[in-house]
């Protein structure tokens, strides 16, 4: 497995001679939207190492309804409760309400909301609305791009709706959580653009945190990632997140790698 990861990194590094797209964060979403009338398809695989190795696959469909409003629909499949199965789905919407442009810089702000469902039993007060819990989330995200560096901050609130029959006796019960993150992305290559077919290469570093306002328990993860953009249309992400401070008992995605492919279809909707 480790050899595979290493090989993938080398492959991606070798592939990328040039690039630009430094706010397409791997573990969070930026405030920027997709272009209007466009579609996107993602396939994400998460490998979770907590007490044993587990896998989750997330097919995702993205649509920009207009220049300010976009939606994602996700499905979650995993082997976390034994057999590999469909465990739930999620609906995510983002509305961009601020857009200030300059030459090679911009500021964007957006509000987002998420509704999720999951069949999984709950063992932790941690809330992960991408597969592990049923619930709702709302928040705000601000992204600033300064030439080759893109910075983004997200603050959100999550509420779990997991019903009694998903609870496990004697285990903590999820209620609500504050989540926050700081993300940075840097364009490494290309230094000079020639055409759309040059592969783009970006590096990301994200800090992801959650706090339960009731119990005060929180954790902080670091998440570095690499990204390649091919033909200005196809995106490949490889990231790893690990906990550096705090903990919430039984949290799911403590040490996790992520591999994703995304395909974009611009201006295909009427």
């Amino acid at each position: 497995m480790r050899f595979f990861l290493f090989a993938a990194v080398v492959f991606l590094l070798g592939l990328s001679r040039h690039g630009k797209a430094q706010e397409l964060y791997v573990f969070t979403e930026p405030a920027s939207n997709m272009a209007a009338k466009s579609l996107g398809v993602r396939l994400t695989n998460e490998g979770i190492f907590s007490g044993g190795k587990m896998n989750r696959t997330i097919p995702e469909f993205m649509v920009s309804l207009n220049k300010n409003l976009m939606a994602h629909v996700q499905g979650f499949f995993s082997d976390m409760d034994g057999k590999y199965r469909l465990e739930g789905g999620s609906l995510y919407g983002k509305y961009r309400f601020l857009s200030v442009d300059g030459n090679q810089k911009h500021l964007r702000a957006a509000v987002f909301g998420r509704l999720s469902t999951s069949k999984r039993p709950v063992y932790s007060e941690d809330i992960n609305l991408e597969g592990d819990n049923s619930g709702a989330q709302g928040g705000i995200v601000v992204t600033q791009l300064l030439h080759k560096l893109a910075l983004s901050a997200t603050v959100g609130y999550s509420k779990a709706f997991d019903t009694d029959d998903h609870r496990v006796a004697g285990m903590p019960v999820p209620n609500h959580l504050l989540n926050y993150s700081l993300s940075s992305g840097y364009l490494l290559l290309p230094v000079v653009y020639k055409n759309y077919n040059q592969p783009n290469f970006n590096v990301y570093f994200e800090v992801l945190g959650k706090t339960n306002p009731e119990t005060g328990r929180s954790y902080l993860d670091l998440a570095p990632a690499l990204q390649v953009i091919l033909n200005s249309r196809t995106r490949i992400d490889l990231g790893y997140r690990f906990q550096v401070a705090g903990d919430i008992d039984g949290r799911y995605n403590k040490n996790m790698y992520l591999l994703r492919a995304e395909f974009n279809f611009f201006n295909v909707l009427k």
Partner: protein
Amino acid sequence: MKTIRFFILFTILFGGNTFAQQLSKAEVQVNGLTCSMCSRATETSLKSLDFIDAVTPDLNRNVFILTFKTGQLVDIDQIKDKVTDAGFSIGELSATINFDQTKVNETGLAVVDGTVFKFINAKNQVLNGAVTAKVLDKDFISSSAFKKKAAELKSDTYLNGRGNVGGKDTRIFHLSI
């Protein structure tokens, strides 16, 4: 006198059936662009306009050179709409206009292919040949540049991009040549 002037403007606006393509090319600098994916999305959006023949990007300067089809009316506002649809905004738009004995009246108004232009630095003259003109209206320059220009010109027509031409409320593009 006023009636005569309206009559002349009307004749310029709606008279004459000879339609020759006078807008041939435009250079659009797009603000807020940060990635080739964004550039590609913007280009695809622009290409969906039926009066555009070709889009050539300069990815390092975030500039798109648009060439227009002959025999089709160019709607400058639609160019702006397509850029904002992609999530970005126009920083500068310069159009190449091929004038053919085009009269600019004493207030700087002229009509090209049925579109009314107001020149802020030309009046009482006849224009001929290819001239590159910069569009100064709202959303065709940065918002700070627009505010500055609006304070300088002190004109409602400029603020709204519309004005009364021959008794009709008309879209007016402000140009600097």
